[in-house]
Structure formats: structure tokens, C-alpha cells
């Protein structure tokens, strides 16, 4: 239980870093999405339950602060997590750098697309939502920057995790011959 409370505080701290610190940084650091980048190793190397909890915490906190309608960040993060999880199960391993790079790229693109599609839908019902959102070439250019920045960040995170933990270390799958042993 104390570990779970500690994890909750860490998630809140990550969100505050994103909302306060990273949002004030200059471009291209401003494009870094720390909560999203946290979700990928959390899902792949730790547990899916932890990633789900983190997504809920990040989503709710982001929605409280958001100028868009409540729920857009929560739905986008959960949707992104489900897609990234499906991709991990179907196509990737959870111990290779390439997997982390592709998963982060997939997560970034999915998050931005889901969020902006939801905003476009909301746009029909609420003129306030249309205030800032435009699906233009600039949007896709920004998406490219965001993906690149997040991918660079995940490379550092991967090597960091690899240095401090054994979770990402490679290992041999050995077949145990039960007959011989008995």
C-alpha cells in the first residue's frame, strides 16, 4: 500500500512537471510529453495495471487544467494506452530499444490524433472548442516534432532504466529437461 501511495505521488509530480515546468520551456523542449513517455516503459517493463492507474491520474489532472472539454485527455490517454498495449502484444518485445522507440512514436501519434479528433467532434457542439484547433499542415509538422522529441526522450529513459534496473536486460530462454533432473 505505501508503494502505491508513493507511486501516486510520483504520477502527480510527473504531471506537475509537465504542466508547470515543461510547458514553460522553449520549442522544441515544449513539445516533450512526459506523462505519455512515462506510460510506455510503465506498460512495457512494469505492469499494465500501473500504466492504467498512471493514465487515469494524468488524464484527470490534465482535464482539470485543460481549456478543452473535460474528459478529452483522459479518453485520449486511455485510448493511446490500449492501442500501445495491443501493438506491444502483437508486434513488439518489451526489452528492446527499437520496441520502445516504435511504441513511443505510436503512442504520440495516437494521442494527438485521438485528442484532436475528439476536439473536432466537440467543435460541432461547442464553438469554444473551435477556438484554437485547426487540422492543418502545421498540426502535422508539430506532430512530427512531438514524436521526434518523445522518441529522443525514450532513448535516454531506456538507457537510464537499463543502467539502474535489470528489467530490460536480455536473457536466454532455456529449456529445463525435467526427465534428466528427476
Amino acid at each position: 500500500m505505501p508503494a502505491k501511495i508513493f507511486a501516486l505521488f510520483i504520477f502527480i509530480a510527473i504531471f506537475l512537471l509537465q504542466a508547470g515546468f515543461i510547458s514553460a520551456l522553449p520549442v522544441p523542449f515544449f513539445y516533450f510529453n512526459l506523462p505519455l513517455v512515462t506510460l510506455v516503459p510503465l506498460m512495457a517493463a512494469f505492469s499494465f495495471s500501473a500504466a492504467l492507474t498512471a493514465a487515469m491520474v494524468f488524464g484527470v489532472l490534465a482535464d482539470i487544467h485543460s481549456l478543452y472539454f473535460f474528459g478529452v485527455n483522459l479518453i485520449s490517454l486511455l485510448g493511446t494506452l490500449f492501442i500501445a498495449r495491443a501493438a506491444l502484444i502483437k508486434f513488439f518485445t518489451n526489452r528492446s530499444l527499437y520496441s520502445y522507440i516504435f511504441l513511443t512514436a505510436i503512442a504520440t501519434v495516437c494521442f494527438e490524433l485521438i485528442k484532436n479528433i475528439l476536439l473536432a467532434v466537440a467543435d460541432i457542439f461547442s464553438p469554444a472548442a473551435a477556438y484554437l484547433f485547426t487540422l492543418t499542415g502545421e498540426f502535422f509538422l508539430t506532430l512530427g516534432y512531438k514524436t521526434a522529441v518523445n522518441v529522443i526522450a525514450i532513448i535516454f529513459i531506456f538507457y537510464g532504466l537499463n543502467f539502474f534496473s535489470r528489467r530490460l536486460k536480455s536473457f536466454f530462454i532455456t529449456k529445463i529437461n525435467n526427465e534428466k533432473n528427476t
Partner: protein
Amino acid sequence: MYKFLNKKILIALLIAVLIIGAHYLGWTRPVENLLLKIFQPAEKVLYRAGNALKIIYQKNTNQHDWEAENQRLKEEVEKLFSENVSLKVLADENKILRAQLDFYSRYQYQKVTANIISRAESAGDNQVITLDRGSADGIKTGQAIVAGEGAIVGKIFLVQDKISYGCLITNAQCELAAAVVSREGTDGLAKGELGLTVRFNFIPQTADIAAGEIAVTSGMEPAIPRGLIIGKITEVIKEADDLFQSADITPAANLNDLTIVSVIK
């Protein structure tokens, strides 16, 4: 398929629906306000740290060798510039509205001081700021956000109980009723361009304006008083066959290092 739609995912979806439903029913409002209140000091500190890093980064990338001298002169110019515009505006108002001399006096605005706690999310740029004051502090949509000595930096466009959102004047979605100081018949519309400058549109062709003049708010918007400095006109674009002329404005305030602003009520 069972791997993707397991029990955990269904529970998470159910919780998400309940949270969103509770929000729209207003049940979570006190908790949300409490969380905002708890997080605001930390966000303020983190924002300032981030902003300080941004300033250092920008200074290093610009490689200003005569930085101190430049800074001192800038401050002096800004001070004189504000003083000059204030006097011009007051003189102008005196002449036209003698009977209502105090009505537009620059020093009688009711202001709410607010900290910027975040640069809010938006597609493409960071031209939206989040302020730690909301409708509970008397902030309303359309009010002017000012920095330093009377330079308008943006406009409130969305207000919640404890926080509000303002678009910066360089945001393409931010529009202000503008005029050239001490010149009659120069009313137009200032709109952000590319997140860098402000384009002053719809100025009548008959209006005589030139580069170097000062653009201020015209007072045509109900929540924004006349005479708040927008910036200096750098270029006038005038075509003989157009109904209107336009001009480029360099914002008076540095929009990159904002931390504390005032909202004029």
C-alpha cells in the same frame, strides 16, 4: 481479442465514464477546485523555473555580447516609451473627453494580479497562458491581460472558477480593436500572426500612419479600455486598389518571459 479487452480495461473504462459523468453533474467540482488550489503553488514555482531556463536558453542562442548594456537601454526605452504613450493618450483623451477626464485615466483601472502557472496546450505553438485566477476573482471573458507598464499581452478567452486562459496577442486567434495613438480615424483590428508579430488590419485608406508610430487598444471592445499599448508599427502595407491598409506591429512587451500579469477588470 480477450487479451485486449480484459477485466482491467473494462474497469478502467467504467471508472473513466463515472469520473466524466460526475464532472458534468457537478459532483467533482469541489474536489477539482481543491486540487487546483493545492497544485497552484508548485506549478507557479515550476513555471518560473522553466521560464528562467527558457530565458537562459534564448540568451545563449542569441549570443548577445553587449547584453547588460542592451538590457539597461531596453528598460529605459520601455519606461520612456510607456511614459510617452501614457502622456499622449491622456492628452488625446483630455482634448476629446474633457468632461470625462477621469473615466479613462490609466491609473484608475481595477486590476487583478495573476501568476502564469502554465502554457496551455494548443496545436502548433504555446501562445495560450493559464492564469491562477478565475471567475471567483472577478475575471471575465474578453478582459485585457497587461504586463509591465501598461502593455497589453493578451486577452482572456475562457474562465473557470479558479483559473482562466488567455491568448497572447501574437496568437492568430487573438483579435483586438486597435488604433494608432493620437491619430483619429485609424481604428482597425489587430490580430496575431505566426506566433511572432501582430498584424493591424482594416485601417481606412484615408488614415495617415507611418512606421515607428505606436498602436494602442482603441476602446471599441467593452472589456478593454482605450490606450493600452500593443506595440510599435514596423511596416505599413498600403495598396492603392485596396479598401483598407494594414500594418505590422512588434509587440511592446516581451511575451517570452511573462510570469506575473494583471487582468484589467
